């Protein structure tokens, strides 16, 4: 008797066989790259500057804040301008991952109903797209950093682990919200308010040092508060991040990632019949 190429059996403990799942995910890695590329192309399809928007967007955004702080505010506080742009760019990595992720499953309906593949690829692609949008902003910030004369130091290498934590956080959030949206379709309309609240509750328009200790103790509940604070300390102030901040950010990102992934994988078999 020949060996079967594939065997489909009921899931044990609600999860698909992990080894096979990861292997088939790895085999399809080109899908994620191709999907992100076509999606970015399509988003800027027909616009005058095309893909140049990826750089123009952060440039225009920082121009607006330049206007706000330097021209209207009349101050020449380069730290404040640097903090605002750097934090906002990292915030957009997470916010874009959330907004891209929320409809990742529901809009992939045709593909999901027709093809067998690890569904987690779809929210993962949303995070990769957010990352592609983030990279140009990093370059824009590097230029701003130089122009406004912010300090440099070796401590700035902390930016690498902080970025990794931010990516895990963004991925976890995309996976979690894409799955929740299958069950509650109105989540996608609530999302703008959620990200807006997250924007105001996080140290972006203000610095973490400016708020009272009482409020700060409540910020333990905000997954990205200390992540953004650490980011600003490292890339704007060129200081080392606080150990507490790093632990807080890592713990939250791993928590969201694992909870989101478990929730997603255990529900994945449902998606084809729920769409």
């Amino acid at each position, binding site marked *: 008797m020949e060996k079967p190429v594939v065997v*489909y059996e009921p899931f044990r403990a609600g999860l698909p066989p992990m080894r096979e799942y990861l292997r088939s995910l790895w085999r399809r890695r080109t899908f994620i790259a191709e*999907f992100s590329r076509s999606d970015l192309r399509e988003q800027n399809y027909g616009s005058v500057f095309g893909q140049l928007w990826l750089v123009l967007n952060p440039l225009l955004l920082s121009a607006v804040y330049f206007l706000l702080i330097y021209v209207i505010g009349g101050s020449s506080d380069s730290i404040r301008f640097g903090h605002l742009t750097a934090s906002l760019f990292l915030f957009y990595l997470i916010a874009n991952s959330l907004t891209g992720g929320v409809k990742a499953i529901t809009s992939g309906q045709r593909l999901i109903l*027709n093809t067998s593949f690890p569904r987690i690829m779809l929210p993962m692609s949303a995070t990769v797209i957010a990352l592609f949008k983030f990279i140009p902003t990093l370059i824009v910030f590097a230029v701003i950093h130089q122009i406004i004369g912010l300090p440099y130091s070796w401590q700035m290498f902390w930016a690498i682990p902080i970025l990794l934590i931010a990516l895990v956080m963004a991925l976890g959030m995309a996976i979690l919200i894409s799955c929740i949206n299958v069950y509650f379709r109105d989540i996608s309309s609530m999302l703008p308010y959620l990200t807006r609240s997250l924007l105001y509750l996080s140290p972006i328009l203000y610095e973490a040092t400016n708020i009272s200790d009482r409020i700060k103790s409540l910020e333990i509940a905000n997954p990205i508060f200390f992540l953004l604070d650490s980011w600003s300390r490292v890339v704007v102030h060129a200081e080392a991040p606080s150990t507490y901040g790093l632990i807080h950010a890592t713990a939250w990102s791993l928590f969201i990632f694992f909870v989101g992934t478990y929730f997603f994988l255990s529900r994945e078999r449902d998606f084809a019949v729920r769409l």
Partner: protein
Amino acid sequence: MISLSDYNHEHSPHSVAVTVKDLGLTYTTSIDKKPTLKARLKTLGRGKKHTRIVRALNEVSIDVHYGTVLGIIGSNGAGKSSLMRVISGIVPPTQGRVEVYGSVSTLLALGVGFNPSMTGRDNVYLGGLAAGMSREEIDANFDAIADFSELGEAIDAPMRTYSSGMYARLAFSVAAVVEPDILIIDEALSTGDVKFKEKSLNRIKELRTADRALILVSHALATIEDICNEVVWLDKGKLMMRGKPTEVIAAYREFVDARKSASSDEDV
């Protein structure tokens, strides 16, 4: 779409292609078309049900051998599409076991296409990559797919500009051009114009070789009788009969007619 096509499977003619053993599929689905948090909160504590349990398949066992063209017939809700989805690995079974001995290409009811704002070309590539094909494999097949679909330059236009016939043509071309070991077609022949329907039927006939297995789901009994050499009849998730096309189709027709006359009697 193809899955597992990166696996070059060797098989002898008439060996087994798919075995389905005691297959059961039960799933929970939402009653609302669009489940929302709002609807949940509004009916909180009132004991209103939001989900229902569907028993789609019940102890179905089938073997499909290479060289077979298997037709699947049955009324709406008989479990035909569910069975195809389980065999293609889209929905995992709740009971039993499915073994597949080759590469599978499926063309299910919804056809090709993933993101309507992307071009036909992008969608073909994305669909292929999602199904596990490599970019080279898609490259090698792409021209043939585009040719067969007769879409011309429209292949590079966003899919939202396509008519339903164009959708159907592209979908069929993707599934049928790549020469899989096992081809599953679920009610996809009913769309498209007469000319393309004939072309796709001819393509299916071409694909009927000893080293390939075809599974067709259709309500067009005449087509099934014409193409298939074996027919399975499902009703309410159960296997009713399996055998020669003429016999099974006759039995199915009798069953449907009997139900029809019973209900017309009730009217009197």
